[in-house]
C-alpha cells in the first residue's frame, strides 16, 4: 500500500547511515568477527599469534572456497549439500592419475572433470528436471560417499609419487607466512565477488533467486542460470577437495564428512538467504571466518569439541534469527 502521498517523496528512499549499517549486513559481520578475535585474544595467550591466525586462515580456506560456490547456488534460490562428499570423491581421480602419470596438472584435470560431471548432474536434475535441489544434492551426497567407500574399500589411497608441487599446494606458505590455500581462497573470492557484482551473469543469479518470474519476463533463461550455478559450486568444491587431499597426502574415504553442513552453516551465518536473491559472497566468507576463529578459539580454551558444537549451533540459530527479525522490521 502506498504510504507516501507524492511521487516525488524521496524521503523514504534516501538511506541514512543507520539504515546502511542495518542493511549492509557485512558490516555487522566484520564487527562480529573482530569481537570474536578480540575475545579470544584476551582469553588466551596463544590465540593472537601470527602462527595461529595464519593456521586458522589456512583451515578456513577450504570451507571458504566451497562456501563461495554454495553461496552462489543459495543466491540463485537453490541448495547444494553435495559438496561434503565431493571433496572426498575428487581426491580419487586426483591421486590415482598422479600415481599413474606423475603429473600434478593431469591429476587436477581429472579431479575437475569429476567435479564438472557432478555439477552437470546436480544442475540437470534440479534446474532442468525441477527435482527439489535439497533432495537432489542430498542424493548425490549419499551416492558419492557410497561410491568412494566402494571404490576405496574403506581405505585411504596413498599418494605414491609424492610430488613436491602437490605437497606445497595445500601445505606451503608464501614468504613462509600466508598459506597458499588462503591465497587461492582469497583470489577465488575476489573473482566471483566481481562476477556477482559486475558481470551480467552475477546479476542474473540475483534476479533469478530474487524473483524467478520477473527474471523470466526480463528474458533470462532461469534454468540455465541455475544450472550454471550448480556447476560453479561443484568446481569450487573440487578445488577444496584438491587442497584437502594435498593436506592429507592421500585420498581419504572419510574426508569431508559433515563438511557440507559446516559450509552451509557459515554461508547462512554470513547473511545469504536460503530463499534466494539475498546475500553477498563477502558475507559468506566472513561467516566462514567467524565460525573458524570461533572453533579455533574455543579449542584453545580447552573446551571439549562437544561443547564447541553446541555453542556453534546456538550462535547460528541466534544470528539467523536476529537477521530474520531485522528483516521483518518496517
Amino acid at each position, binding site marked *: *500500500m*502506498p*504510504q*507516501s*502521498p*507524492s*511521487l*516525488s*517523496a*524521496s524521503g*523514504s*528512499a*534516501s*538511506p541514512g547511515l543507520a539504515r546502511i549499517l542495518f*542493511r549492509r549486513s557485512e558490516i555487522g559481520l566484520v564487527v562480529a568477527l573482530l569481537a570474536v578475535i578480540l575475545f579470544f585474544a584476551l582469553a588466551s595467550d596463544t590465540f593472537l599469534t601470527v602462527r595461529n591466525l595464519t593456521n586458522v586462515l589456512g583451515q578456513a580456506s577450504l570451507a571458504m572456497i566451497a562456501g563461495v560456490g554454495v553461496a552462489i547456488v543459495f543466491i540463485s534460490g537453490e541448495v547444494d549439500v553435495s559438496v561434503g562428499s565431493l571433496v572426498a570423491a575428487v581426491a580419487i581421480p586426483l591421486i590415482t592419475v598422479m600415481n599413474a602419470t606423475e603429473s600434478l596438472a593431469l591429476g587436477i584435470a581429472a579431479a575437475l572433470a569429476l567435479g564438472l560431471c557432478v555439477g552437470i548432474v546436480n544442475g540437470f536434475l534440479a534446474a532442468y528436471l525441477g527435482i527439489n535441489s535439497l533432495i537432489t544434492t542430498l542424493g548425490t551426497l549419499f551416492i558419492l560417499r557410497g561410491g568412494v567407500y566402494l571404490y576405496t574399500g574403506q581405505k585411504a589411497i596413498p599418494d605414491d609419487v609424492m610430488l613436491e608441487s602437490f605437497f606445497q599446494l595445500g601445505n606451503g606458505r608464501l614468504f613462509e607466512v600466508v598459506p597458499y590455500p588462503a591465497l587461492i581462497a582469497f583470489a577465488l573470492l575476489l573473482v566471483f565477488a*566481481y562476477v556477482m*557484482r*559486475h*558481470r*551480467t551473469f552475477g*546479476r542474473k543469479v*540475483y*534476479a533469478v533467486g*530474487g*524473483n524467478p*518470474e*520477473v*527474471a*523470466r*519476463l*526480463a*528474458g533470462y533463461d532461469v534454468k540455465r542460470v541455475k544450472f550454471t550455478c550448480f556447476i560453479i559450486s561443484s568446481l569450487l568444491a573440487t578445488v577444496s577437495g584438491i587442497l584437502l587431499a594435498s593436506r592429507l597426502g592421500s585420498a581419504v574415504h572419510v574426508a569431508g564428512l559433515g563438511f557440507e553442513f559446516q559450509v552451509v552453516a557459515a554461508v547462512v551465518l554470513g547473511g545469504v538467504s536460503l530463499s534466494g*536473491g*539475498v546475500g553477498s559472497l563477502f558475507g559468506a566468507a566472513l561467516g566462514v571466518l567467524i565460525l573458524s576463529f570461533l572453533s579455533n578459539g574455543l579449542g584453545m580454551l580447552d573446551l571439549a569439541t562437544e561443547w564447541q558444537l553446541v555453542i556453534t549451533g546456538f550462535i547460528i540459530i541466534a544470528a539467523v534469527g536476529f537477521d530474520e527479525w531485522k528483516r521483518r522490521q518496517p
Partner: protein
Amino acid sequence: MHAETLTRNEAIPLDVPALAMRGIGKRFPGVVALDGVDLTLMPGKVHALMGENGAGKSTLIKILAGVYGKDSGTIAIGGVETELKTPRDALKKGIKVVFQEIALISEFTVAENIFLEEYPRRADGSIAWKTIRAEAKALFDRIGFAVDPAARTGDLPVSQQQMVEIARALAHEAKIVVMDEPTSSLTPKEVELLFVVIRRLTALGIAVVYVSHKLDEVFEISDTVTVLRDGRHISTKPIGEHTHDSLIHDMIGRRIENLFPRSRTGSAGKVALSVEGLSTDTKLKDVSFEARAGEVLGFFGLMGAGRTELAKAIVGYDPIRTGRITIDGTALKPHDTRTAVSLGIGLLTEDRKLEGLMLELPVQQNMSLAALSSFAKAGFVDEGSERSAVQSFVDRFRVKTPSLFQPIKNLSGGNQQKVLLARWLMRGLKVIVVDEPTRGIDVGAKSEIFALIDRLAGEGLAVIMMTSEMPELLGLSDRIAVMAEGRLTATFSREEATQERILNAAIA
C-alpha cells in the same frame, strides 16, 4: 535505449498505427476467451480498454505482452506484420506492459531494475554502474519523477514502483505502453501524477493502452475507447462520442439467463450477523450492514473495491482498526478465527488452492477439517463416524469423486467447492461468507453451486456472497450491497436492483 532519445521519436510516423490487432482469437479448455477481437493503437494517443471482469481484457493484453500465444488473427506493429512469441520478444518490439503485479526485483536498486533486460556495459564487458545510475537519474528527471535511483526498490510504495516500471519502458524505447488497472492501489493525488506522466508519454509519440474499470479516469485521460464483452469486440469510439450511460450500456448489454434456481419462499429471519463501522488499515472504511438468517446478501464491487478484505475481516482473518462485529448476538473479537468458527461463521475463500484446500490430502480429510473435534473422543478421531458424516455430505451435495480417499486435487473445481462448502456446514454454521464462489468453475457446475447456495439460505443460514459477476449477483441475492474503494456505496433490494444502478454505485 538511452535517455537522450526521450524527445519525440521523429521516426515514428503519426498516421501509421503503432499496433493493429485483427481478428484475435484465443481459447482455453472449455472457454472462448477472445473471439475475433480488433484493436488499433495510434501513436501519441491513449486508448482505453474496458469491459466487465471476464470480458477478455486480461487475455488480450497478455497476448500483447507475449505471455499467451494467440490462436488466430494477426498483429502488425508500425504497419509490419509480426508475431509476439515471448515476453522478451514483445519487449524487443517495443511493447511494455505494466501489470498490476509489479514485475521488479525488490532487492535491487531502482536504477538496476530499469536496466534489468539489458545492462549497459563497459568495453571490458563489466556492468557500467555509473552509467546506470546516471541514466536512471536523467530518465527520472525527464518524466519528473524524483526518486533516488540508488533506493532499494522494495522500500518504495507501490505507486512509485509503478513509475519505475514506466521509466523502464522508456529506457527500452517502448513504442507501446500498456497499463493494467494502474490506479487500483493509488491515492487520488497519485492518480493525478500518473496522468501527468501518461501525457508526457503521449507527447513522445508513445501509444498508451489504459485498462480500467473507472469511468471518470477513462473520460479524463483517453482519446479512444474499445469495449469488450464476453470475449468479443463491442465498440471502438472516440471518447467524445460516449456518455457514462452509453459506455455502461456497451459494457453490460447482455441478458441474464435464468441459471438460478430459486426454491426459497419464506422471508428472512432474525439478524445473524451485524457489522457496525468496520474499518481496517488495509482498505475498509466505515462499513456497516446486517445479514439475516435465511437470506443471501450479495456484495458487488469492481476489482480493488474491498470485497475480499471485507470477507476476511468479518470472519476474523484480518485485523480490524475500528468497528464491531456481532454474530448471533455475541461480539467477535477481531483477529480471532477460533472464536469466529465456534460462533458459527465460516469463509469460503476466493483462492481455493492457496487458502482452502490441502491439495494432496483426500476428500475426507479436507471435508472434516473444521468439524474434526466433533468426531473425537479423548483426542482420538472416531473414523467411523467421520466417514459416515463425510459420506452423507458427498451424497447430499452430489460430489463427484471415485472415493472419499481420492486426493482432492484430482476433483474438478466445482466438486472441490462443494467439499469446502460441506466443510463449514458440518460444523453447523449460522453465517457463511462465500468469496467469488464460482471462480474457475465451468458453467454446468456453476448452476449446481448456485442451487447449493440457494438451499443453504433455505435451511436458515445467512449467506454473504462476494462476487464480481453481475448475473450471479442479480440471480441469487435477496439484497445487494455495492462497494467502491473500501466503502459501502449503496444497498438495493432484489426488486430495486438493476445492472445500471449497481454499476453506477460501483463506479462512484
